[in-house]
């Protein structure tokens, strides 16, 4: 898991910093040597999609995704646990579908030997971000759902202890 954490962060840091360097380099080169880098947009967009998927994965780990939890927070912990489970399960189902159909998209890109317009890279190198990101997210959601359910358990125990003391 440690290795996965590191790999995830490394990919994110590398992609975002490369995007910034290419963007700045392109602006500078346009004004000082009057030459735009034709490949810059395409490369940045590919990095950006990877960055978004891997960032979304860390966001699941950190519980940073926006949601409306006011209603479920009002529920007693026992019921809340059920909804935490439902949310996790739903997310996993969605990501499994995305991984499956994403993989089909990649396969057809390989089959038709599609190339990106400016760089001539095989199209699947960009498309692979979809299934790869989805699988990573599935791992993170399983991890965070278990953590959150344990947290609810802990709260139930804590409130039971309080009652005993009283």
């Amino acid at each position, binding site marked *: 898991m440690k290795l996965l954490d590191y790999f995830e962060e490394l990919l994110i840091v590398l992609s975002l910093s490369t995007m910034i360097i290419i963007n700045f380099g392109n602006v500078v080169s346009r004004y000082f040597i009057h030459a735009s880098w034709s490949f810059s947009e395409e490369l940045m967009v590919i990095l950006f999609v990877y960055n978004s998927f891997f960032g979304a994965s860390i966001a699941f780990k950190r519980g940073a995704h926006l949601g409306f939890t006011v209603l479920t927070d009002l529920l007693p912990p026992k019921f809340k646990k059920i909804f935490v489970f439902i949310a996790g399960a739903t997310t996993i189902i969605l990501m499994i579908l995305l991984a499956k159909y994403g993989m089909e*998209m990649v396969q057809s890109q390989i089959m038709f030997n599609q190339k990106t317009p400016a760089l001539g890279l095989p199209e699947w190198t960009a*498309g692979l971000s979809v299934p790869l990101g989805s699988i990573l997210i599935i791992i993170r959601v399983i991890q965070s759902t278990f953590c959150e359910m344990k947290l609810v358990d802990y709260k139930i125990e804590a409130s039971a202890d309080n009652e005993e003391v009283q």
Partner: protein
Amino acid sequence: MGWILFGLFFLFLFIGIPISVSLGIAAIVSLCLFGFPLTMFPAVMYASLGKFTLLAIPFFVLAGVIMEYAGISKRLVRLANVFLGHITGGLAIVTVVVSCFFAAISGSGPATVAAIGTILIPAMVDSGYDKGFSSALMAASGNVGIIIPPSIAFVVFGVLAEVSIGRLFMAGIVPGFILGLALIIVSIILLRKNKGSLKRQPKSSWPDKWSALKDAFWGLMAPIIILGGIYGGFVTPTEAAGVAVVYGLFVGFFIYREIKLRELWKLLVDASVGSAVVMFIIAFASVFAWLLTTGHIASSMAEKLLSLTENKYILLLIMNVIFLIAGCFIDAASAYFIFVPIMLPVILEIGVDPIVFGVFMTMNLAIGMATPPIGLDIFVASSISKVPLKDISIKVIPFIIASLVALGLVTYIPALSLWLPDLMGMK
């Protein structure tokens, strides 16, 4: 079909499933029910993410994080304070003014609240301001953040409605200042009651003012570089966002020397996560929006809306009410993807400029960020000041009312949005 799609979305949302996943699952279940093939959905998602213009999102998020770490926010506060601190209610004015200014760097509401609130909420409390009032004012001031350019929200709207982002940015300036002014007026009225308990700062001397100005100079330059670059025709809004990152790093490393090299990793990860949350919503919202258009749900809803009344003013009022309610439950990016396909045809039909539509829709969603139950700005303000959400929610009401007045002006007087971009001859 529309009812199923929307019904499922709100059902999933209300049982605590993240917005992005709720949008995705609702769209996929509807796709299956109505016999669309599922094979297209990763391609629709990839196409919506892979847009160069949207790169402005991670860039502006990172620029905001960097400017905060670089110590620019505290220097702006000091600058505003030496000029305005001696007035009664001065700190309240400082809060609004600095928020407007910081918003011109960061492009996001919650980022503004986090950067300025950590400094100004404690400062207001020390000077005898009510803690709830201070937090509420800070949360409401964060609103200004997504209306004054550069704004992440405007980037998303511009991409979706296919209007010029540069023109949208310019159109947001005057409405942003009107909103700021409304907040200042309300705070002064509210503070009149307990004038006696407020500590006023002594008037600062000119050398003090000069040194604060000199110190804040590099921070003040940031919006000039961003907006000047865009309107001077040197860079696109997306490129400007990336240049702002480099500028922020330069100031943070070499001039203020407050960013350390080892913090850079954390800054890049945090900014990527912040941007990915928005992008993940955009990815699934685009599938939702695709279904709205392809399934002719959007057009039939637009027709229904137009059949209610042909009166332009009533239609605009209805839209405002819908956006305000939506803004209380969902974030700006998903609101654009859900409502723009439905409302934009109506807007064009009744002859309203899409730019004005973008500005007032964004104002609605901004107000939603400061209203319970899921106003992000309130959450951030509450976590900084440790004032319970419930108390801030009550104290924020007068500010919401003031914002609604500003919203009304901007909705019904298109010149407020269009005057500045037209003056600059922007198309």
